[in-house]
């Protein structure tokens, strides 16, 4: 675990160690013994079971696990969309019983309002707070300027590339000054190159805004590159299988992926996850399913078999 566990020390006392990561006092996510059951009776599905996680103020934490393991459900509990069946979820001690602007969220699907321009999208949250037009326009332009998106303020989302839409999505989520940012595989729909650039942009924004980030992904490299800590979830029902601190120095560049420390972490996480992925696919992989085909095929390809 990094030295972020002591947020109170992150002031002038040790400026050298924590200069650019002075942890704010707010944005503390705490999920304790969370259990989520969907449906009732015979149709009941246990999605998350006895999961406890914590994101300390200013910390970047990822949850990684096979698809359908309940990691999105866990995030939705923190966002306030799903009520816990048992256990608790709080941000700064307040139960997350309904969604709110104190928790910004970035979705995997493009979630910009297509009928609003980029700037109006960013203004949406400010408008809900009742800010006057001129004020929110100015704030939105400032934020878009910081993100290098100002030239596109009057574009509609459909005129933007996928990477830009997600950048606007992040800026929109930041506009209401949330203490925490919840991200549900935000770069899952992007191609590998765009994804890598987006990871750097996100790291940069996170450090500037000093937020707590809870990040859902199934990409091991992504989770190591971005996080201070990674939780590994089991196949459904989702439990926390491991908690891996990522003690890599920051700032991190993409080249860090070739360092032995990174590769060791990757190997460790891969081992933890591949077992779960097999479990998650369980029924799909009976009778030679894993081999693909149990015998090798000759020159004529599949024609040999038939």
């Amino acid at each position, binding site marked *: 675990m990094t030295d972020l566990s002591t947020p109170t020390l992150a002031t002038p006392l040790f400026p050298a160690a924590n200069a650019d990561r002075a942890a704010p006092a707010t944005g503390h996510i705490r999920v304790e013994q969370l259990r989520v059951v969907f449906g009732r009776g015979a149709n009941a599905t246990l999605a998350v079971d006895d999961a406890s996680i914590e994101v300390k103020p200013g910390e970047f934490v990822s949850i990684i696990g096979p698809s359908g393991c309940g990691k999105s459900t866990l995030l939705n509990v923190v966002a306030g969309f799903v009520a816990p069946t048992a256990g608790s979820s709080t941000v700064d001690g307040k139960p997350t019983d309904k969604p709110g602007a104190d928790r910004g969220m970035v979705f995997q699907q493009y*979630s910009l309002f297509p009928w609003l321009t980029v700037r109006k999208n960013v203004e949406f*949250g400010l408008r809900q707070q009742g800010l006057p037009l001129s004020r929110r326009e100015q704030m939105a332009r400032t934020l878009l*300027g910081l993100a290098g998106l100002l030239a596109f303020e009057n574009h509609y989302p*459909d005129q933007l590339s996928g990477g830009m839409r997600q950048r606007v999505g992040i800026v929109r989520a930041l*506009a*209401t000054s949330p203490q925490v940012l919840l991200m549900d595989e935000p770069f899952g729909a992007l191609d590998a190159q765009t994804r890598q650039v987006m990871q*750097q*942009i996100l790291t940069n924004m996170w450090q500037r805004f000093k937020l707590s980030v809870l990040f859902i992904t199934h990409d091991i490299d992504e989770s190591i590159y971005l996080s201070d800590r990674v939780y590994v979830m089991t196949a459904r029902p989702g439990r926390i299988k491991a908690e891996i601190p990522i003690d890599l120095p920051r700032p991190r560049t993409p080249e860090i992926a070739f360092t032995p420390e990174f590769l060791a972490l990757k190997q460790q996480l891969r081992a933890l996850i591949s077992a779960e992925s097999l479990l998650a696919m369980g029924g799909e992989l009976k009778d030679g399913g894993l081999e693909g085909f149990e015998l090798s095929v000759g020159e004529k390809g599949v024609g040999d078999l038939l």
Partner: protein
Amino acid sequence: MLTVHPRLLEPDDPVERTPVDRTQADRTQAERIAAAALPGTATDTTAPASPPEPVVVAAPLPARQGLGARLLAALPGMLSAALSLGLFVAFWYFATKYKLDFYIRFNNIPSPGEVWQNAVILSDSVRFYENMAISMRRILFGFGIATVLGIALGLLIGQYRPVRALLFPVFEVLRPIPAIAWVPMAIMLWPSNETSIVFITFLGSFFPILLNTIHGVNSVDPVLVRAARCLGASESALLRQVILPASLPHIFTGLAIGMGVAWVSLIAAEMISGQYGIGYFTWEAYSLIEYADIAIGMIVIGVLGLACSGAIRLVGNALMPWLASQRGAEK
């Protein structure tokens, strides 16, 4: 919470130069993509510190072409349209000239020439314009009320289960009854002929608008609703600022259909129970053996109906400028 953390508005935090520089590559690449889709827009963002001029892109893209170029491009279409109409009128002309009679009979059908002569005479008749104006007014009231009620109820029924449970069954029972079937009941129900005709017009357009609005609400992408809630939208803000605009394309489909049905219902109601109105004019011409006027009435109804649909399309395009960019993105 009405303030933003001051940290949000610090443009020059001396943290971390490298990642900022790195984003440059992506930014320019992304801009190139956007710029390719949008010829003629400035895309200089290399220096976020000095904000570039705001770019206005919202206008429909084809409007940037010159008028001459657009006319030229439309020429083949216009020529074939003229040919199509010319063939129709020519058939009409010869069929009436030679009194064509093969099951359908052209013996009593007015020729294009007769129709034109009567049209010239009618163009001086105040009464004729009054009939048009009265029909338009009935459409305006009937369709207008249907629009307001249809959209409002559609939003509520689509969004709130209890409202749906309470209102939808009634509408489901009433909906299959054609507006024209209401004519006798409407005459008894409403104090004047005028209000009952407006009521018939209203009924005709109400259900298409209502049903399409409900459909629009039901097909709103749930992720947009979740995003809005995360941004602190209240229930009423959600309805007005998310559900309504997201449903607009469906609503306008309903309005276009509703306008068509409104005219059908209006003309029928005017023919059956009316005094005044272009439908009444057309039926009266038949009773008075002014056969050329029948054709004039029909043509006027067609033109007015077309104008109303065109108006809806124009309003739709003005209210939904983002659809132009969506269509542009698909190309």
